[in-house]
């Protein structure tokens, strides 16, 4: 896929507006708004418990948000309100795919089968909902071959081609992470959401991951990722959104965010008074961080 025109690359793919999520009395996300641009890597960072994964769960249909709008704009100009779609439609119709912090592969299926499940809708249609496929129609055979080729392509990218017929559960941790990304890509998403893709990886694996993610972006898929590993975030993201206690505290380029005193305060876990001090220095009217 070639990258689009300049107007397309600067287009917004995901717009989160006034998102709030309440669990009983706990406000996990409080009026959070941000945008992710098409063709960019947007990172969502913040201390533990800041609500990053909750934002992801709202985007991918795990939770129905208490309030707010999640608009996804596809490259053909169609817009979808993610919170109104059924769970499987978020992928099938809106083209959003995700991975998990704790790996969720189909461990009993082989590596290749994992990638083929991700192409279910294409294959199901081509096989005439199984009936025509059983009759061995050529259209289905072509589709099946294409699906395997696509799987092969991603297996090579993820460096898993030798393991194609092994059960997914037998792979090493790093390989399972790469397989999860490959599987998400096999659905042909426009927006790929990655929940801590570098968690538990050693520095070498982390480096391979960076290359893989940049490759995905350069092929035209936009990425939204949650990450703790600052070396990953600062190196590969084009845009960073910082959350703390369910609210956005900073938003901008990696360099801008890195030097934002609020972000520094949130990450270093300074005392409340110090935050206030810094905020006073910055002449901010409202106190957001540190107090709930």
């Amino acid at each position: 896929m070639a990258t689009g025109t300049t107007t397309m690359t600067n287009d917004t793919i995901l717009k989160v507006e006034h998102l709030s999520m309440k669990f009983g009395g706990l406000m996990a996300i409080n009026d959070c708004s941000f945008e992710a641009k098409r063709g960019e890597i947007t990172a969502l960072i913040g201390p533990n418990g800041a609500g990053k994964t909750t934002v992801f769960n709202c985007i991918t249909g795990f939770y129905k948000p208490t309030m707010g709008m999640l608009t996804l704009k596809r490259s053909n100009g169609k817009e979808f309100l993610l919170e109104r779609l059924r769970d499987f439609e978020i992928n099938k119709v809106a083209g959003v795919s995700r991975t998990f912090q704790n790996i969720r592969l189909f461990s009993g299926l082989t590596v290749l089968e994992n990638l083929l499940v991700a192409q279910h809708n294409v294959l199901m249609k081509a096989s005439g909902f199984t009936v025509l496929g059983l009759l061995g129609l050529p259209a289905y055979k072509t589709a099946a071959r294409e699906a395997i080729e696509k799987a092969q392509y991603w297996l090579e990218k993820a460096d898993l081609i030798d393991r194609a017929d092994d059960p997914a559960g037998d792979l090493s941790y790093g390989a399972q992470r790469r397989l999860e990304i490959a599987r998400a890509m096999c659905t042909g998403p426009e927006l790929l959401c990655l929940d801590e893709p570098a968690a538990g990886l050693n520095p070498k694996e982390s480096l391979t991951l960076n290359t893989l993610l940049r490759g995905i972006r350069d092929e035209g898929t936009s990425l939204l990722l949650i990450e703790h590993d600052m070396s990953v975030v600062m190196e590969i993201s084009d845009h960073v959104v910082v959350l703390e206690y369910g609210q956005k505290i900073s938003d901008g380029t990696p360099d801008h965010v890195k030097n934002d005193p609020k972000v520094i305060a949130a990450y270093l876990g300074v005392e409340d008074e110090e935050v206030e001090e810094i905020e006073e220095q910055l002449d901010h009217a409202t106190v957001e961080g540190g107090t709930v």
Partner: protein
Amino acid sequence: MEYFIQQLANGLTLGSIYGLVAIGYTMVYGIIGMINFAHGDIFMLGGFAALIVFLILTTFFAGIPVALALLLMLIIAMLMTGLWNWTIERIAYRPLRGSFRLAPLITAIGMSIVLSNFIQVTQGPRNKPIPPLVTDVYHIGNITISLKQILIVVITSILLFAFWYIVNKTPLGRAQRATEQDRKMAALLGVDVDRTISITFIMGAALAAVAGTMYLMYYGVASFNDGFIPGVKAFTAAVLGGIGSLPGAVLGGLLIGLIESLWSAYFSIAYKDVATFAILAIVLIFKPTGILGRPEVEKV
């Protein structure tokens, strides 16, 4: 020896029927972790659907070839029963998905009672006999094998192969296995989980309908409470083979069929059910997951 082989043939025939029904139990359990106790009655409905088709055919199209009649009985029974099971899943089980585990189980028992009573009221409580459809028998030495026994084993084998192929080689089967392992993740990859589950119910019902038709053909009678004892035995077969495992269901079915006919042949026919369930109990003591069942792996 000949007597033994004769009983073996009888056992295999009966076992094929149990195996087909057991697949329905095991698949539904595999995909949504629920035991569909109404499945035995689905099997009974399949038999009745075939019976009604048979009566219509012999009344209005007298002289129709037996093979064609049988084929029509099978196809219509499969369609009707599939529709029934789809409806049951849609109205009785799906709304309860995600509630506590016992709720769908109790509902399934309720559905079982509803179905058998519905047939009792609409079709009458008496046994419905049909004239024997296939009467040819073959003699090999002193062993007698009837054509219907051969038919049953052959049809079962073909269906099992088709079924194995669908589950292991087609996109639908992959989606079923993926849904079985992680329903939410399958949905996130674009698999319509609700539809996949519905199709599983329809497939299970279609196999039960074939079993019901063959049971009707084999014994020559249908009764509204046919779903109970054969249903429980097929469930036993699924548990014995390892619930959730497809080859296990078939193996369990064949074993139960063999135990039953061999016990009846050499010991007392009155105690054949006792023998079946005793063996189930013994197997479960030493191998709680059944013969081919995988121990449940804890999800992290």
